[in-house]
């Protein structure tokens, strides 16, 4: 039925099967939309947040998807600026995943604020001292860049490409893509960093506060670094999941291994910096505020030292060691383990820097604050996942996302 829209030389599932798939994802999306509307119309009382937990699941989801979406800017940087030509075979998908992550982040932010209609105040009444202001500006600009990077792919659709104007537009946009890749890398450095700064500057919260250079706490650099390190792992993970679902090899193994190798070295260097940061914070910064390291990891029902070990050792050191060794990259099981751990590591780091910050008591006569999300919060957090599944499915079906697909899956 829709064969005229499907790229030439590739095979896609029947329309009814595709419709069923989209319908299932659409049902989840609808669930999220209902929760979103409830929140917009009834307010944030629909959540389980409270005055001790002003930042919760959504801010974590925001930080996590932006970190994981970092695969777009870093892969673009490697492809267009560093000149790793092999990555042209995965850059489209990295951009698409980044586009989904960043649009999701913006949507979650729009749900998260108490007065959504005043969201524009962040630009109009901008406070230059606030890390969140920098986040808002850079995030919005970078989303614009991602849109520009995604548009040429849409223009490559068989039917759209037939229109001479769109054909030439797409061609010309491809020609200058290095400029946007550089712009994206520049913007990403700042907003990824600013997101780290969001918690790092909180000098009233000893669990979060870090010293740094000029106005930037160390978390500024660590967040950028970890996004560049773990983002490509997320791109690989989603590629592998797509291959599993479609039952096809879509990207050649050498491309995956190259990205995994670079990611491994990035994770390795990041985790060394993270260990130094944690050590200095535990030995100098926190004690200056009257806290021992274990004060942050005891006397509560959830946050034990296990979370620090999980983040740094299991989800940091282990994937780095696997990915920097050729043997680790060549083994499919080891590679998958490493990229899942790396993705989990970024998510745990963001969780800790948002939710544990809120949980730790600062006044001596207050207790740990525990929180679990309401179904509305869960549904609106899953909403972007369903949206991502739909956009990836549509893009995969109608756009030439994977340049190597035809070669890897010759039609018999």
């Amino acid at each position, binding site marked *: 039925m829709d064969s005229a829209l499907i790229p030439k030389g590739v095979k896609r599932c029947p329309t009814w099967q595709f419709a069923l798939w989209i319908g299932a994802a659409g049902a989840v999306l609808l669930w999220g939309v209902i929760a979103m509307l409830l929140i917009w119309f009834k307010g944030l*009382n629909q959540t389980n947040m*409270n005055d*001790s937990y002003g930042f919760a699941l959504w801010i974590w989801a925001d930080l996590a998807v932006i970190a994981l979406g970092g695969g777009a800017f870093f892969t673009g940087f490697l492809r267009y600026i560093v000149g790793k030509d092999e990555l042209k075979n995965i850059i489209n998908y990295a951009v698409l995943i980044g586009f989904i992550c960043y649009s999701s982040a913006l949507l979650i932010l729009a749900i998260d604020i*108490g007065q959504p209609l005043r969201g524009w105040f962040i630009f109009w009444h901008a406070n230059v001292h606030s890390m969140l202001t920098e986040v808002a500006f850079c995030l919005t600009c970078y989303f614009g860049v991602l849109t520009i990077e995604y548009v040429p792919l849409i223009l490559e659709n068989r039917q759209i490409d037939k229109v001479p104007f769109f054909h030439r537009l797409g061609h010309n946009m491809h020609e200058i893509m290095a400029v946007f890749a550089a712009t994206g890398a520049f913007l990403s450095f700042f907003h990824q960093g600013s997101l780290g700064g969001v918690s790092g500057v909180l000098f009233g919260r000893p669990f979060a506060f870090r010293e740094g250079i000029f106005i930037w706490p160390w978390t500024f650099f660590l967040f950028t670094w970890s996004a560049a390190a773990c983002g490509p792992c997320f791109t690989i993970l989603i590629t592998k999941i797509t291959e599993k679902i479609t039952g096809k090899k879509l990207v050649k193994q050498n491309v995956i291994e190259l990205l995994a190798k670079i990611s491994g070295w990035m994770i390795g260097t990041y985790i060394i910096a993270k260990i130094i940061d944690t050590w200095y914070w535990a030995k100098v910064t926190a004690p200056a505020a009257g806290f021992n390291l274990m004060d942050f990891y005891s006397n509560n029902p959830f946050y034990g030292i296990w979370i620090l070990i999980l983040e740094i050792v299991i989800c940091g050191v282990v994937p780095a060691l696997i990915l920097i060794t050729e043997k680790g990259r060549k083994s499919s099981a080891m590679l998958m383990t490493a990229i899942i751990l790396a993705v989990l590591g970024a998510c745990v780091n963001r969780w800790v820097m948002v939710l544990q910050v809120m949980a730790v008591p600062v006044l001596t006569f207050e207790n740990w604050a525990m929180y679990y999300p309401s179904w509305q919060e869960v549904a609106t957090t899953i909403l972007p996942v369903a949206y991502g599944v739909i956009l990836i499915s549509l893009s995969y079906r109608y756009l030439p996302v994977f340049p190597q697909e035809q070669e890897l899956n010759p039609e018999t």
Partner: protein
Amino acid sequence: MKEEQSKEKAKKFGMVIDLDKCTGCGACMVACMSENNVPFKEDESNKLDSITWLKVYKLTNGKPFPDADICYLPRPCQHCGGKGDHGHSPCVSVCPATATDYSKETGIVSQIYTRCFGCRYCMAACPYHARYFNWWDPVWPEGMEKYLNPNVSVRMRGIVEKCSFCFHRYQIAMDKAYYEDREELEENEYQTACAQACPAKAITFGDLNNPGHAVYELKKDKNAFRLLERLQTNPKVYYLSSREWVRRAGDNYLKDEKK
């Protein structure tokens, strides 16, 4: 020159709360809520989402009888001056929309309700939990809206609010002074509702920079301390207590660390 002049005239309103006098009666909380049109819920049992600009904490020394001791600690917004007293208090510096501001003229941290868009970053930044979010629109029991204070705007759902040191009272007092061709206020012309309501006179309010005000000397008392001074938030609320364990409860210390 102009800056020097304004520095000389700059006021730094603050509080000294004598914890040895506080009985924990809660009159300050009631006065605060009434004065500032603070909304409340039908069921106030969940204190994590109810609004109390001034909250009275109950502290215990954790010892068994006969050494057991308690202390009530009223906690308004601390109106932090931030590191170096430059006005970069934890909340002011993080608000992305400049919806909370530090007045260099009065030292008061304000909240602009119509500009706040409810991101709650200020709440995350405040170690005192002095900031509250309006999870609901205010609903007043029938007829009670007639008793609302006309000098204080009511707040809508989705924004943050906090203690303002009854700033509207300062504005009214300044208007009166201007009308009477005066530039300065007498100490008793601007007082917060909580300070006036306290039956034990535990709360003293005034200009911390003015030697003529009681708080000027009180803050220098050997038993005076502020909450979480080590974080360099530089609060303008001082506490007095002759009890060492109470003073120690004001901040975090490493195990076996001497104050």
